[in-house]
């Protein structure tokens, strides 16, 4: 008797499991985890992307803000989510490629399967409009003549702007005192009041604050159309490429078919009118990478930042 019940329940369980596996993804809402608070740049981008992605997937796409500890809480939540493809993380460069070096985190590049790169924009070194520095060379020369004077504002320790500063100091053979402020707004304020000489910002910052700031170098391999006369750091003799990017990932182990569906939806989302408009409003080109390309890109960035953070002594034991 007992074994009959067992067999029966095994059969029922088998049918149930079978149905789950056969069901067409997606059969319910997909959640995009944004590791920062609502209203921020990443959040707005995620919400713009969610609309057209929902149309492409034929299901609802919900944005969930899981904020905290420099984006690592949301990234860890994505890594730990069930690998059914219904939880997707929109993870930016910081939590993906710098934070895991700074301290022990319950995730790393191996914790994810990669869906797509959704945006990538160059960063730039920003100084005050009335600054005496008009080129990278001016600043480097000043730094060499006046050691221990230059203050470099950073939005957070170990953030991409900080890593870029470390890279610049290393390449140019000068030293900066890094002063951490809480995000771009306060860092910008600190530059306006003269506390810090420069900081690294998303290139859109130059257009939104054109009357107060100028840039001395674009930290990218190529110039950008919205600021076509801004020289890249490479043109000025210091090769530096620090894009500010973000992309969709799913927990490791998601069914490749499901991942492909998400990738297709992501591509449709990135090329949708609403998303293109959002990128235009930021003055940045639309950039897209498929999952495989995105994965190798993330791994390369991860390695590069590992080197820079180790050299600066910021790497966790």
């Amino acid at each position, binding site marked *: 008797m007992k074994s009959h019940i067992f067999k029966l329940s095994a059969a029922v369980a088998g049918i149930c499991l079978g149905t789950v596996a056969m069901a067409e993804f997606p059969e319910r809402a997909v959640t995009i985890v944004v590791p920062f608070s609502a209203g921020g740049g990443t959040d707005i981008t995620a919400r713009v992307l969610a609309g057209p992605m929902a149309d492409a997937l034929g299901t609802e796409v919900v944005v969930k803000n899981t904020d905290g*500890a420099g984006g*690592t809480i949301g990234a860890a939540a994505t890594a730990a989510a069930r690998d059914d493809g219904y939880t997707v993380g929109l993870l930016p460069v910081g939590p993906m490629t710098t934070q895991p070096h*700074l301290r022990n985190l319950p995730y790393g590049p191996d914790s994810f399967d990669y869906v797509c790169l959704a945006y990538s924009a160059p960063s730039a070194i920003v100084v005050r409009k009335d600054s005496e520095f008009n080129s990278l060379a001016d600043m480097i020369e000043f730094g060499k003549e006046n050691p221990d004077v230059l203050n470099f504002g950073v939005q957070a320790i170990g953030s991409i702007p900080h890593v870029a500063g470390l890279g610049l100091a290393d390449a140019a053979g000068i030293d900066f005192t*890094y*002063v*951490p402020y809480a995000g771009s*707004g306060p860092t910008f304020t*600190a530059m306006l009041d003269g*506390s810090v000489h420069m900081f690294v910002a998303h290139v859109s910052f130059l257009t939104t604050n054109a009357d107060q700031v100028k840039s001395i170098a674009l930290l990218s391999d190529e110039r950008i159309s919205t600021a076509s006369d801004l020289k890249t750091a490479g043109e000025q003799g210091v090769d530096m490429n620090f894009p500010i990017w973000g992309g969709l990932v799913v927990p490791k182990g998601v069914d490749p078919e499901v991942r492909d569906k998400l990738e297709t939806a992501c591509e449709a989302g990135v090329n949708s009118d609403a998303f293109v408009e959002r990128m235009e409003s930021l003055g940045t080109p639309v950039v897209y990478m498929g999952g495989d390309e995105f994965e190798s890109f993330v791994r390369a960035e991860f390695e590069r930042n590992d080197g820079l953070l180790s050299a600066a002594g910021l790497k966790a034991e």
Partner: protein
Amino acid sequence: MDAFVLGLDHIATVQTLMAIVIGTLVGVTVGVLPGLGSVIGITMVLPFTFAMGQMPAIALMLGVYCGSVYGGSISAIVINTPGTPQAAATALDGFPMAQRGEADLAIGWATAASVLGGLFSVIVLILAAPQLAAFSLNFTAIENFALGCFALICIASVSQGNMAKGLMSGVLGLFVASIGLDHVTGDMRFTFGSFQMAAGISLIPAVVGLFALSEVFIRASEARLPKPEITHKVGFRLPALREWKPRLWLLLKSCTIGSFVGTLPGTGAATAAFISYSEARRTSPNRENMGKGEPDGIVASESANNAVTGSVMVPTLALGIPGDPVTAVMLGTLIVHGVTPGPRLFSENIDIVYAIFVILIAVNLVMFVVGALGAQAFTRALRIPEPLLMTMVMVVALLGAYGVRGNALDLIIAFGAGIVGFALRKGGFPLAPLVIGMVLSQMIENSLRQGLLLTRGDFFAFFERPIALALFVITFLILVWPLLRALWVRRRYWKPS
């Protein structure tokens, strides 16, 4: 003026206008219910704001805040139990008036005085906040550190009753906020290796626990009081214009006191109402009747406590420094909705600032209508069975705690904070310094360390900056003032011998 039009433009949507009305209604109701103060009111509407746009969310919160400060007066008058501590002074004359059968008139006085006080303080806010913001725009880390010290000391010196307990609460707040990521070095502090703790103890779950849950626990731990009987005729009757004439000076003075007290960090509407009440008791031509149902008492208390509502927003909006737990929660919620108060808000999003001004004016006008039409209805809220009410508070407050960051740990934090809040209240420790400490902690610590980085570790360079020096001197004087006064009194006492 253009900015005003922009502000009007912002709020001229159905959602925002509805949020103003609903917020005020909820606020007055929460105010009427004893024990549920402004803080609990705001934390209760918090989860609903997550689904709203920026402006409706702000409107809802401001409506709840202003409404709750006013609502407390209704229960103070009708059942002699102030719905909020801010309205405690209102009961002194309001209830005797009600006993005389003039509850409707007392509510009329309270409503009119509240609305006038509220509007007065919005004017103060409109005049003062942009100036303060412009002045502080060039504050560097060093000035911010001095400002943080100043704000902290103010809190300590106004912790009524037991200064030592107030200080301990404040220090606890400073400590709790240091848990998690150290912003200056990127290290983790007091997380005991727990990854979840890296996010730190965020303000809103903590406040939800400290205020809302601890209130629930306290109610559960105490014997239930019999439901108050409402025997008086409750209604609304505006006092005649000639009654107002001799009280104009009193009204103006009370509004000024309220607005001034509101701008000081760490004080609040309750302090303002009592200062204003005792001032009226000292100088009013009707002082003989005060305490026996004299409208002067209601006017003094209600205009002063509502005059705090706008002016308390001055440091909150202009400097990003909240003056009391209510504005601390509001600040947290504003940030959730993408508005970061501080000097930059005024230079970059002046339209939002003006929208807040316009909302505050609208809330006060709505409050008048709500009070006039619904005073009777609000007293019915007093009949809600307590267990039902407390369950509601708990569910909604926890929703808010979870929703801010979508982190389940925040529920544990809220419960923990609830137990801590319960214990602190039982032990006679004030909770406000704890919350203010939590809010100021990062600002004080980060600005100190940023300043030291900028001066390459030279602390004396802090005193070379005039504004910072002035703030340090004022802080020091406030700190030693009680000592100096004691010495002076003693010297006078000794002289004759």
